[in-house]
């Protein structure tokens, strides 16, 4: 029997998701024993016309990482959706928008103004900005359209499963590949990771006092967390209570509070607002002035509560607004 074919594709991402596969080192040979890699732009030179020539269903599964920011990314993922039996949103950016999704806190004009005119390191005397169509020496050159919003994968195509994480840890990837090969997949739309919150497997949970009070928010940039203590009890904003388990506590073991890359556990309406509410209740402030001082001690609340999930959160604009 022929080996099943898989495709890897990247959109607006950093390359860290490819690194998960590359990190396998020689174990990648075991992957290649089990499946044929039909598309993997980071390592193989497959062209779009090759993919266009695939028969629908010829490729068993596409692992797509990265958020959707450019018109070209939409064209690619629509093509892969058509040709592949299963589409898996791979990593935080495809799952929820990820770090690139924080750009939704501003707008396209501001981004272009900063990038091409204002920033201290920009030298652009001619005021040149990218154009979708340019005529140069008789040639018509085109660039993809830069969308107003960054979108997670499921806001543009139908997604079968999600592999969360920045990047997804390989044990979850291997379990997912195993489930696909054996045909033992859960219900469509599932996030292929545990359903409980991270705190439940965090060793520091035992150090959490019964009545936690938060007096100020500290930053890991300016002070070092106690290596044993619950981050929240120690005054560091940890996304653990509002984040899905399954990452293997990579940040916690590195003495960094959880940043929420796995996204919320099931049935959480909005992890950022919910955690804000929970944290605020535990704050130590008995007057409006003290409450303001406590709130102001958290630098960058948007980037802290929504580091990986702004485009998938309640704060997003509704899906029916036009794309470009």
């Amino acid at each position, binding site marked *: 029997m022929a080996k099943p074919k898989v495709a890897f594709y990247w959109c607006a991402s950093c390359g860290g998701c490819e690194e998960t596969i590359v990190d396998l080192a020689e174990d990648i040979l075991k992957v290649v024993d089990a499946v044929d890699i039909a598309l993997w732009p980071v390592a193989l030179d497959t062209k779009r016309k090759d993919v266009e020539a695939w028969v629908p269903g010829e490729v068993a599964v596409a692992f797509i990482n990265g958020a959707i920011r450019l018109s070209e990314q939409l064209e690619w993922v629509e093509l892969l959706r058509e040709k592949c039996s299963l589409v898996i949103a791979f990593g935080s950016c495809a799952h929820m928008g990820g770090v690139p999704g924080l750009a*939704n*806190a*501003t*707008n*396209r*004009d501001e981004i272009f103004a900063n990038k091409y005119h204002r920033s201290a390191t920009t030298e652009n005397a001619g005021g040149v900005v990218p*154009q*979708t169509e340019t005529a140069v020496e008789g040639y018509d050159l085109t660039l993809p*359209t*830069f969308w*107003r919003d960054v979108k997670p994968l499921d806001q543009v195509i139908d997604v079968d499963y999600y592999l969360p994480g920045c990047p997804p840890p390989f044990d979850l990837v291997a379990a997912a590949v195993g489930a696909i090969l054996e045909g033992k997949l859960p219900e469509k739309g599932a996030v292929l990771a545990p359903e409980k919150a991270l705190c439940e497997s965090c060793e520091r949970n035992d150090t959490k006092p019964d009545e936690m009070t938060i007096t100020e928010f500290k930053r890991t940039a300016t002070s070092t967390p106690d290596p044993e203590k619950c981050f929240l009890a120690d005054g560091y904003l940890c996304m653990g209570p509002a984040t899905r388990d399954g990452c293997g506590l990579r940040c916690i073991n590195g003495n960094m509070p959880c940043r929420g890359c796995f996204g919320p556990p099931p049935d959480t*309406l*909005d992890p*950022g*607002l*919910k955690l*804000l*509410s929970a*944290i*605020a*209740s535990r*704050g130590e*402030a*008995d*007057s*409006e002035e003290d*409450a*303001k001082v*406590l*709130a*102001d001690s*958290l630098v*960058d*609340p*948007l980037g802290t*509560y929504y580091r990986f999930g702004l485009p998938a959160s*309640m*704060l997003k*604009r*509704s899906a029916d*607004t036009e794309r*470009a």
Partner: protein
Amino acid sequence: MADQQFEPKIVGFLCRWCSYTGADLAGTSRMEYPANMVGIKVMCSGRVDPTFVVKALKEGADGVLIAGCHPGDCHYSEGNYKAMRRHPMLLNLLDQFGVDPKRIRQEWISASEGELFAEVVSEFTDQIRQLGPLDWNKRIEADCETV
């Protein structure tokens, strides 16, 4: 410039024990205040989850009022303190996202303060009228028509 045609839509989350009763008092005392606010009775200002506030703003409200018992008077002893601590955190978050913090107001209004209730609603309605419509979905796209 304030748009004279613009009628703000305001959602008011009113605590059942103090502020909602205060609103009743304003009504039974025949005090006049703008009809722009739709009051929603909640058991406690501490029950007003930030998701309620964001949902109201997303779905068309131009402003949100959260009113509860004065600190120390909470029927559940400290629900309004939770609301008090949450408020500046939510304002900071929404401010960073580009929503003017002046659109969300917290007030302590007791059951006997019908007059204060009418004043707060009048003042807040004026304030939102000055700020203009929020229009959550269009908020960022206004100046993004062209690439």
